């Protein structure tokens, strides 16, 4: 008898229902409290390449190196149907950062690094940051409610955050809707405030909202869509940066409000014969400062035998400049807003990464490497003046995770 596919809705319905079965790695996990304690340690070493001598005016060519240690814990919580996640982070930063940009004798922009003058020497930074974040998840049937909070402290910076998330599964776990809101309050206490023509204390805060949809399309593919909106208010300038305005150096001056909008889509496709999955992520972003950006990330997750997995990935990013971005000016500024921060300049970037995972009993190990390059040459659009402070970096990280009770 010939095989027909007329009754395929029956098969899809059974397939969908079987996918939700937990022992088969089902989607039901989204609304499932942790029953085991799991702990992980993550270390990463982020290293920015030196500024090439052709782009350096003064100061050391060394840029930032950041070492991060993070411990994550996840455990069932006091009440039934709840769990708690904790993340503790300790970061040390050393090196120097771009201070301002000036023209060289030919009018070509070159970067002056912090630490270029003796009064600046304290900005040859050796800093540390400590943070703690927690998330309490409460589950009831297909619903999840999460409360998040966080605290982060640096010598000259303090941040407190709180948030709320709700999620609901429909359709036997095939569809998940999520919504959330968050609030962050930041206090800045610039060191050497007077030398930088700054006050000793500034504040800003950010309110964010997001909504998301996850849809399991079939047993091979999944689509996630989310929309984020946030608004920052307060002092949003960089207290340690200046702009070269011909006759004087003026402190970085940005608007006191920034509205940001982002649209994210994630698609995952499992290729059964190869035991591999393709991940395609795309992000569109725009803000009230005039920046719009596109990010495309492709990753190939290949499962191998003996509990090994290897994931090569590539990421492309492109952004337009902020309206008030100004590398430097020979005459006064066109308005009272200006910044020469390379992160507000027009550029493109490309990065490649490789991740290796190994599972062994209740243990999981991972090793990751990423190499990132940015510049005008990677931009989709024509860039008049490339910011000389655009950075190239590499990150090497490793993590180890253990689930108790396996």
């Amino acid at each position, binding site marked *: *008898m*010939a*095989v*027909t*596919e*007329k*009754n*395929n809705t*029956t*098969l899809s*319905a*059974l*397939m*969908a*229902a*079987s996918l*939700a*079965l*937990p*022992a*088969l*790695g*089902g989607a*039901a996990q989204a*609304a*499932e409290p942790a029953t085991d304690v799991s702990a992980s340690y993550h270390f990463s070493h982020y290293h920015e390449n030196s500024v090439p001598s052709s782009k350096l005016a003064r100061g050391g060519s060394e840029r930032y190196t950041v070492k991060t240690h993070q411990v994550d814990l996840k455990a069932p919580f006091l009440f039934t149907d709840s769990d708690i996640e904790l993340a503790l982070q300790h970061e040390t930063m050393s090196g120097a950062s771009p201070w301002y940009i000036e023209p060289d004798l030919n009018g070509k922009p070159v970067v002056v690094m912090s630490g270029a003058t003796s009064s600046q020497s304290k900005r040859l930074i050796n800093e540390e940051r400590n943070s703690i974040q927690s998330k309490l998840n409460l589950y009831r*049937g*297909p619903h999840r409610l999460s409360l998040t909070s966080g605290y982060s402290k640096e010598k000259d910076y303090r941040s407190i955050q709180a948030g709320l998330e709700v999620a609901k599964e429909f359709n*036997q*776990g095939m569809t998940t809707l999520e919504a959330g809101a968050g609030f962050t309050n930041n206090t800045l206490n610039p060191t050497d405030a007077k030398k930088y023509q700054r006050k000793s204390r500034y504040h800003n805060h950010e309110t964010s909202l997001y909504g998301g949809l996850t849809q399991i399309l079939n*047993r091979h593919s999944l689509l996630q869509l989310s929309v984020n909106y946030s608004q920052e208010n307060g002092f949003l300038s960089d207290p340690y940066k200046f702009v070269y305005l011909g006759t004087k150096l003026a402190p970085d001056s940005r608007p006191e409000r920034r509205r940001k909008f982002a649209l994210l889509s994630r698609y995952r496709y499992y290729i*059964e014969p190869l*035991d591999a999955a393709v991940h395609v992520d795309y992000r569109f972003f725009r803000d009230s400062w005039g920046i719009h950006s596109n990010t495309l990330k492709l990753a190939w997750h290949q*499962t*191998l*035998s*003996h*509990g*090994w997995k290897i994931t090569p990935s590539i990421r492309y990013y492109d952004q337009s400049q902020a309206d008030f971005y100004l590398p430097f000016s020979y005459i006064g500024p066109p308005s009272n807003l200006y910044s020469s921060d390379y992160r507000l300049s027009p550029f493109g970037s490309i990065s490649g990464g490789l991740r290796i995972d190994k*599972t062994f*009993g209740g243990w999981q190990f991972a090793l990751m490497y990423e190499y990132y390059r940015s510049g005008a040459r990677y931009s989709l659009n024509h860039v008049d003046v490339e910011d000389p402070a655009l950075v190239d970096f590499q990150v090497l990280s490793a993590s180890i995770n253990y689930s108790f009770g396996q």
Partner: protein
Amino acid sequence: MECTTHKFHAMGTHCQLFLYANDSSQGEALIIQAEAEIRRLEAKYTRYQENSETSRINRSAGQVAGIRVDAETAALLDYAATAYLQSDGLFDITSGVLRNAWRFEQTTLPDSDVINHLLTRVGWHRLQWESPHLTLPLVGMELDFGGVVKEYAVDAVVAICRDQGCRHGLLDMGGDIGVIGPHPDGSPWRVGIRTPWDPDRAKAIIELSAGGLATSGDYERYTEIDGVRYGHILNPKTGWPVQSMVSVSVQAPRCIIAGTASTIGMLNGIKQGKQWLAELGLPYLCINRDGSLAGSFSTDS
């Protein structure tokens, strides 16, 4: 790589796990975990133990307040609800109470009043199921996960083995089969479908490299009354055994789906059953009463 075989008895049937492990310690670890998972599910869903989840559910029959079930049971109930809906009410995990009328050692037909009384306690539609809250509103109602749990256990073991990097192996739980992956040289497993009258000889050989295979049939348990053969597969709508094929085997991406499809194929009877299976689109094989084969499998017989 060498093939390790582990044989044991669980869920009322013979189980055989064939594994090609990377080394003997991995093989041993997988065997222990596989058997533990099967025993966990057996203990949780058996009807024969007071403290099982199934017994707890069945004890709640008649309680208006109902009970709350855990996520795994909820997913199984959701699955059963889907199977009920997709089979137009033939696949029904509430039909177990009908066993009280059909004891397969009996020599006379049951009284139709008994069947009719039992039928008032049968029917998924009589349950109140609002995940994770379940109510069996009538005293005497029962759930029986027997029709899904063995197949689910097969899939669970396949998932455990694959999660730990094992890519070659097969689990057979009394004819419910899950494939972890083909032999290391890429060749498929060859699984025999037995005939009732010649159990030592395979009637057909089915080649499997992935997914699951399940067979539903009434050749193992039946009774003959006044020259008529009554199998153990009962129609939950009439309360009577269905007159169907000798057996139906279905291959599916998962054993649980193969099991559900083969059961629904049987429940639909000889003609409609084949039509339903053909429309489902999964490879299947029926053994007819006269010993002939029908279906969409390419087989060596």
